[in-house]
């Protein structure tokens, strides 16, 4: 038998329309714009990390540390982080709107998504801009070997 969606027996009433800024339109535009930008950023990221030069075998702590000391790659990674997390978070929000049926479940799930997005963006941004592969005053045996060359 075909799967069926239980039909409601009572008519719906449309919630009264709220005044103010309409974020749905901007959310929709954001998804399109960030999607196009992310295609460039993510494939550029994959190309540089996995294909250029020695390819995937060059990937190690020193490679990442080297990239994160370059302002160009810092901004590349930060834009990727912000665009992708907000893009994904907004996508998850629309899924919750479509599938969570009760107000309470909707509220809980959407706040959980918001918290996850904010925490990851703050932590990620902090790491990208404050990352120091060779912190001063640390015992030499805990530091990567290339620090001795500095």
């Amino acid at each position, binding site marked *: *038998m*075909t799967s*069926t*969606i239980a*039909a*409601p*027996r*009572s*008519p*719906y009433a*449309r*919630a009264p*329309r*709220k005044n103010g800024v*309409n974020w*749905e*339109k901007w*959310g*929709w*535009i954001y998804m399109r714009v960030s999607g196009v930008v992310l295609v460039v950023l993510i494939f550029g990221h994959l190309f540089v990390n996995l294909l250029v030069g020695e390819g995937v075998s060059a990937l190690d702590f020193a490679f990442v540390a080297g990239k994160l000391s370059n302002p160009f790659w810092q901004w590349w990674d930060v834009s990727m982080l912000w665009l992708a997390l907000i893009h994904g978070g907004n996508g998850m929000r*629309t899924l919750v*709107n*479509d*599938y969570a*049926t009760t107000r309470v479940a909707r509220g809980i799930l959407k706040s959980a998504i918001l918290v996850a997005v904010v925490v990851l963006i703050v932590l990620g941004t902090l790491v990208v801009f404050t990352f120091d592969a060779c912190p001063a005053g640390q015992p030499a045996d805990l530091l990567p070997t290339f620090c001795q060359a500095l």
Partner: protein
Amino acid sequence: MSTPTLESPPAVPEEIQSFTVTLSVRRFNPEVDDEPHWENFDVEMYATDRILDALHKIKWEQDGSLSFRRSCAHGICGSDAMRINGRNRLACKTLIKDLDITKPVTVEAIKGLPLEKDLIVDMEPFFASFREVQPFLMAQNTPKDGKERIQTVAQRERFDDTTKCILCAACTSSCPVFWTDGQYFGPAAIVNAHRFIFDSRDENAAVRLDILNDKEGVWRCRTTFNCTEACPRGIQVTQAIAEVKQAIMRGKP
């Protein structure tokens, strides 16, 4: 003396083959049932018969309590949209020959609208959305010399596709976003807004664009294309919705 006879008897018209088709109908009687249930009916059908003919046969010869809507029976009035083999179709445009009759053909009411009895749903939420987009010509000016409002062929062509809507609700009740909470305006309301938004004679496109630029408006469309697939008039519904989105972004049609 013998009467003259024809050498060969006139060709007997070939008998048209008929089939026994099993219809599995989702019945619901609000006075007796708590939940809808499936009931099978066997009907003798020709390949050129339609599902509507099968329903008539059941109602007239087997079970008079079967309830369904139909008016013109020729795909114009939009009364008999129903879910046939899991797809929204007009019963009067679905031929037996196009269905797999080795299995029972399932017939049920369209989804997402309150079920009233058997194949009948309450269409009021659907028409309420339709009314909300103000589907009528609004023009402040008086046409020249008290004559008709002139339109070029190209201007008429712009919204020709969306004039075909018969408000059968096949599109809206096939939309998974509409199924979730029924708050979404739905494809049919947007199609009928599109018909006036892109009409050069109409002057209130901005009002309709503002109505549809809503939390429950065009932005809830996920371009699933269920509506386009369901439309018995072949309207490119998803394209019409996308054109309204573009118009909202431009701020004008």
